């Protein structure tokens, strides 16, 4: 029984869908952020699997960049969450509508 990149792609797609569901359904902004991290990981699995298939490390290089971006996203995103929480005492995404006119 051989595990092909197709298997990894399906796994990745499923994880990505879980992330999408999390973003769309949950209202706690921290959980939404975590769902985004799940989606990023799904992408990474895909990249690593294909990097091995193609015997080319460029895929892994991309993963490094994705992780770097994820770190930046988490730092800024959590900073925003904290600032919002200080002002509105909520982490409910539905109540965060300051930018909506």
């Amino acid at each position, binding site marked *: 029984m051989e595990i092909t990149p197709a298997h990894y792609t399906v796994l990745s797609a499923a994880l990505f869908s879980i992330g999408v569901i999390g973003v769309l359904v949950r209202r706690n902004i921290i959980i939404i952020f975590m769902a985004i991290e799940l989606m990023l990981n799904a992408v990474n699995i895909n990249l690593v699997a294909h990097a091995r298939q193609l015997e080319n490390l460029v895929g892994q290089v991309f993963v490094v960049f994705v992780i770097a971006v994820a770190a930046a996203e988490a730092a800024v995103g959590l900073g925003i969450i904290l*600032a919002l*929480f*200080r*002002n509105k*005492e909520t982490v409910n995404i539905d109540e965060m509508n300051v930018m909506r006119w």
Partner: protein
Amino acid sequence: MASEAAPIFDTDELVLNMGPQHPSTHGVLRVVLRLDGERVVDADVVIGYIHRGIEKLSENRDWTQIILLTDRMDYVAAATNNLGYCETVEKLMEVEVPRRARYLRTILAELQRIASHCLWLGTHAMDIGAMTVFLYAFRERELILDLFEDYCGARLTYNSMRIGGLPLDIPAGWDTKARAFCDVMEVKISEYEELLTNNRIWLQRTREIGVISAADAIGLGLCGPPLRGSGVFRDVRKDEPYAAYDEFEFDVPLGTKGDTYDRYLIRLEEFRQSIRIIRQALDGLPEGPIMGKVPRLIKPKAGETYHAIESPKGELGYFIVSDGRSTNPYRFRVRPPSFCNLQGLRPLVIGHLVADVVALIGTIDVVIGEVDR
């Protein structure tokens, strides 16, 4: 908008209850801290957990029985409490105490000061994390307790003085032992100093921590080392000599900055000065009786008096009113140094971190038995 809403978060302070069962509150002191992060915004000192009503109790005991109760106030310096009480009653009765008794009282009081400071040094260092100093200091305190045991048979609550003198003369060879102790102690003090005085971490933990100016210290009614740490010269032994202190030479160390480190240095120097006094007293110990002329039934004539001595913690004063008719005091009131120094805790801790709170409780050297009485 942010500036307007910021206080909502900023008032979200953590209320931390420290004590009465906390390893660093030295007994049953309770401090309710209001924290902003780890910084103390406000502190509420709660006392009274071992209030036994010693003052009221004393008004229903006859004059000799009270000596035993004074043991239970500052239980790490019982002999000093005995001394203060006995001298107050003697002042009230105008009894002359023989010179030998006054010398021995001075020796006992100074030994007690060393013992009390040992306990303070050990626990203070332990609070800041130097656990070895704790055991070293207790090792030397043990020697003093042995001396007291040789003298009066008790190790903590001595009941070691009587109105008009002392109950017992020192046993044979006791003065040699006391001299030997002085020699040992002198070496050990430098041992403590090696571990702490120039230790970078110790300096960082005590310098500039809990600074209190001379004016503030006087305003708060501090006494003893915390007051002298701020550079105020006030030592009852010098200002209003009692026992035999006017016959000895000793210095009163003063601080300059009024921080925790200064108070530490002062107490270490007091160790040395105490040894100096003990040596002088042992050298010049006169022969003679140890009890003055005191009537069988102690019944001071009507009147009131206040008398203070310098306990290891500061000015320990007794205010006693006698109605001249009964065999017990009409009013008995103690001015305990720990209680007055505890006043200083709140202003000291505000603005400091939680870790400093334990260091500051240590630096003012409170004994809750004396605070609550």
